């Protein structure tokens, strides 16, 4: 059996990749994908730990996360489309009207 450490390490790596992507990338779609990557990294940890401790709570949490992710995909894509309509671009750096 694969030790749980491996799963958690992979999960941490994926999460870090997601964070870095969100912070440094400018393309809104890529940012969006990185957020999905972070969600799925968390999902992986949930499932791995659920199996380790031998109850199903973690796996149920995963379902909730997937539901939220689906809703988020719908809302997020809608935001990106309206962003494109108003700014003629999907670069996040162009959407800086809140600049103080």
């Amino acid at each position, binding site marked *: 059996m694969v030790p749980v450490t491996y799963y958690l390490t992979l999960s941490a790596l994926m999460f870090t990749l997601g*964070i870095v992507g*969100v*912070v*440094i*990338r*400018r393309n809104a779609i890529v*940012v969006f994908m990185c957020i999905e990557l972070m969600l799925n990294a968390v999902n992986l940890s949930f499932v791995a730990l659920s199996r380790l401790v031998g109850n199903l709570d973690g796996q149920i949490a995963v379902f909730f996360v997937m539901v939220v992710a689906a809703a988020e995909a719908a809302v997020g894509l809608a935001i990106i489309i309206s962003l494109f309509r108003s700014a003629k671009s999907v670069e*996040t*750096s162009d*959407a*800086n*009207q*809140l*600049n*103080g």
Partner: protein
Amino acid sequence: MEQNGVTALGYIPLFPLIGSVLAFIIGRSKRDAAGWIATLASAMAFAVVVALVMAMPEEAEYYYRAFTWFSVGGFTLDFAFRFDHLTAVMCLVVTGIGSLIHLYSVAYMAEDEGRHRFFAYLNLFMFSMLLLVLGANLLVLFVGWEGVGLCSYLLIGFWFKNLSYAGAGRKAFVVNRIGDAGFLFGMFMLYRQFDTLDFAELAQAISVNASPELLPLYFVVALCLFVGATGKSAQIPLFVWLPDAMAGPTPVSALIHAATMVTAGVYMMARLNFLFDLAPQAQAIVAIVAVFTAMVAALTALTQNDIKKVLAYSTVSQLGFMFMAAGAGVYWVAVFHLVTHAFFKACLFLGAGSVIHGCHHEQDMRHMGGLWSKMPITAATYGISTLAIAGIYPLSGYFSKHAILAALEGGHNPALEGLLELLVPMASVTAFLTAFYMTRSFAMTFLGSYRGHAHPHESPLRMTAPLIVLAGLALVGGLWLGGTLPHYLAPVLGSPAEHGHESIIEGLMHSWIGIAGIGVGLLCYTSLSQIPATIYRVIGPLSTLSLNKFYFDELYAAVVVKPLEAIARVLFRVVDQGMIDGAVNGTAAVVDVSGEVARSTQTGQVRHYAFFMFVAALLMLFLFVFAGRV
């Protein structure tokens, strides 16, 4: 015996008050009506006073409570008037001479654009002055006291477009405030001790409380009240405002700054004689200050060239004479000189006004001369008043001044022991100087040949009629009042010592001081005009001292005004601009800088916000994990 509820008392000040309002309102559209309204109001007040005095039984006094002014805790203050013999004399002077001066002003101010304002102020002054003399308690007196101060300020600065005139008004106001502070302190201490400000109750309380431990209090109170009197009645050290007050129209100088307002301090001392009698040291200080004021003012008057300035310093000097009598404790003499001075000094001022009017606003006596033939009535009345103020028998000034010198000489004040040998000769010298400088002003104005360029003419009847009446009073007032006044005032001021009648020869002999002054004056300023120049050359520095008014203004500028300005500058630069503005501006600057810092975090970039959130989440995680373990 005291009669209550004599409503007529209320009308005396009411007429001028109504007159003031009407003169202003109606005068705005009908300028010429204002003067007549004001004159009528003043004359009506005079009529009421005369009727009251006629109807007043011997030893009586009237009392009228207009309304309760305020009632706080156990302290109730009535707006009440008391009319006794002292008040009667004052009211007659104020309304009588006031009415004459109103009549005179109608002609004098006929050309002035703001004459409705002038007459409104003048009637307001009459109202305040009548409150002052009618008030039955110290606070009503004080209301009048402040009221006349306000009117004086308004009328000195009547031609306020001239900045130095407006400054003279301000100076009078500020200097008087200093005196008023003393007056207030005296009033507070009296109230604290006796729980009342009513004159009759105060007299009662003080007469039963003559115990030695209260004497220091009486001394301090009397001194504080005298500080108030030095302000209002122009004594050293607060007399500096009166010469400057000549900036006002000449009738104002006659009414306010010669006949009535400036005598308020003398009236106040006579009114509170029961208090001053228990403070002999304070009386001694009053007498000393009075003698020095009279002397210094007379010396200053010697070299003034402005006809009104001579009269102003003469007024200061004569007020000094009144305070000599008050300081000697012979109050009826102070009031006597107050009345005679009101006659001849009002006449002199109005005469000066007539001259100024006739010479087209020339006030410098060096540009006058020879007006005797051109303005005979003015010259004659001015001459009579000059003789009166010089103290020539049988004119009014002789009797009052003689009585003052006698009172000072015969004083029984132990605090003045030894000083009288100095004070009495000083007063006599001052009387000589008075005759001299008044003769000088008469000679420079009316004798010799005309030195100006205008075409002097006699003033209209409306101006000369008051002059004639006042000159008549100055002529016979002393003879008439010298016999009646002491007995008339006896119920208020105590019975004077009887003194025998003097013959004409004795009278003329006693007026040698005045005759000498006039003689020397005539000699110096008519036939031997080189004498003054020689004298000035010989005593050069002294005459400069007199010409520059003993540098009182410069002294006050250096001692009071300049330091105050320096303090004000420090307060302005350091405290106001530095600390107060600094605190306000500093608060704004802190907000500004912190806002500047905070806005740099608001880039508008989503990924920056995301990064902050991530860092914050990490921090919180560390806190939970590691801090939780400790």
